């Protein structure tokens, strides 16, 4: 992946590939993968081409479903806010929700359902407590950034949360955090204080063992 810096952020295409690469790194070859809120299916297509996964996408948006079908990606058009009934227990190796959880209302239910249908979950989301977002709020405005690219009046996001908030919810739901990666806006891995320095977070989650 290319290395950007704060003065030279990644292009949209580079960011997309970067996100895909981070997720793909957690998906062993040949797995069965379910991607919730899969958009036009590009991630699944990438995972199929690079990892040989057998993937299904779930999407509610009509244009995105058309995109999936154009991308020759198996897609099921249902509203996951209503849960994943129909999907059988532990029928996938990994379930992914890539930058879509913040746009859904039924957060707890979706997290629970994800770990019902798959052994592990991969979740990525924008961190509302990222330094630049805090600065925007301090200046009196809702943040708009690479990872939060919408003005407040047009954002599809309905849940505004931070790494600290998400980890607290995982604790409450008995979800084990198996791995966490945070990146700044330039795509650089953040090691110090990710809740402050991370713009985008990736989690690998499972049921708490024992």
């Amino acid at each position, binding site marked *: 992946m290319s290395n950007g810096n704060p003065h030279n952020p990644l292009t949209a295409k580079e960011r997309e590939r970067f996100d895909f690469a981070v997720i793909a790194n957690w998906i062993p070859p040949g797995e069965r993968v379910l991607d919730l809120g899969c958009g036009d299916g590009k991630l699944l297509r990438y995972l199929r081409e690079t990892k040989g996964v057998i993937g299904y996408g779930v999407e509610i948006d009509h244009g995105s479903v058309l995109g999936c*079908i154009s991308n020759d990606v198996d897609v*099921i058009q*249902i509203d996951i806010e209503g849960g994943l009934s*129909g999907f059988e227990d532990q029928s996938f190796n990994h379930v992914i929700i890539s930058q879509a959880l913040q746009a859904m209302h039924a957060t707890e239910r979706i997290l629970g359902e994800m770990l019902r249908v798959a052994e592990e979950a991969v979740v990525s989301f924008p961190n509302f407590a990222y330094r630049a977002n805090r600065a925007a709020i301090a200046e009196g405005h809702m943040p708009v950034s690479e990872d939060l690219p919408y003005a407040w009046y047009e954002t599809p996001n309905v849940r505004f949360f931070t790494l600290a908030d998400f980890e607290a919810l995982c604790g409450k739901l008995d979800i084990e955090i198996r791995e966490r990666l945070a990146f700044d806006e330039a795509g650089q891995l953040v090691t110090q204080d990710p809740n402050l320095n991370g713009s985008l977070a990736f989690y690998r989650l499972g049921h708490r063992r024992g």
Partner: protein
Amino acid sequence: MSQENSVGVVVPQRVRFNEPMRLKSGALLPGFDLAFETYGTLNSARSNAVLVCHALSGGHHVAGVYAGEPRNVGWWDNLVGPGKPLDTNKFFVVAVNNLGGCYGSTGPISVNPETGKRYGADFPMVTVEDWVAAHARLADHLGIDTWAAVIGGSLGGMQALEWSLQFPERIRHAMVIASAPKLSAQNIAFNAVARQAILSDPDFHGGHYAEHGVVPRNGLRLARMVGHITYLSDSQMGEKFGRQLHHGEHQFSYDVDFEIESYLRYQGDKFASFFDANTYLITTKALDYFDPAYAYQGDLAAALARATARFFVASFSTDWRFAPARSREIVFALLHNRRHVAYAEIDCDAGHDSFLLDDAHYHAVLRAYLENIST
């Protein structure tokens, strides 16, 4: 009709199969004819053939027009043609009139070679399984080992599904639109009312009306009126007709008062003028009996285990005859079997009949799926 992207003037064909066919009911059909049309060209690898299956009242005239009949346009002409979603520049499209039909394939209006009279009520009941077995003979006749796709809406979708079960190795893509894996009690109830309308018509004569020189027009008309209600959505009917009055004021009579009454009578009259009542009875029974899970204690996933085709499944938001939940049953049974499936739930106001319309998004989805089918 615009001639643009039309397959143009087409000629229906007919083929005779002399080998008797054992039907699911146990009856033996001593050979039969199938009427069909084709559009496009079969490639040298014979890998670009698509079968279009028709629903209750359709037939083999799917696209184009007949010579000297410019208004006789095929029932799915908006889908099939050069440059259309089911592109005849790419695919060799085959459309067939089902066994028991009344448009040219052997059916109740055909002459029974054993008696020299029309079959009428003596024509055996045929099922979706029988239709597909007959289609397979046509495929053999045309030199098609494997369909690139079998596509159909409603009852046609059931045939596409049945193709994937009866001949899994002969179908690469099953496109099941506005369909269901079996009828619900409500669906059967509507069919039962339609049949009773025909069976109780004094001109029915136990199905041998042809011998009496009459047709049970009234019964067929009522059957179509009942059926037609289930093809439309409440909202669309409301929008199109509302409570509009045919004569501008209440008539205080049992003649046509509201526009919807006039519309239904028109649809019923039109249908009764060309469709055969026995074919209607047989077709509704084929619908009622279709249930691939029946032999598997109702377990659809078990029934679909032998299907290996890739599936395209689509439903329409306002279809209450075969609601989206019915399509999802198919989707999740396929998922259980780890089959490839793409499922689109399309917003369209026109109820069950949406599958016949050229809604822009619907056709874009079909086009995208068909474009990815290799030939």
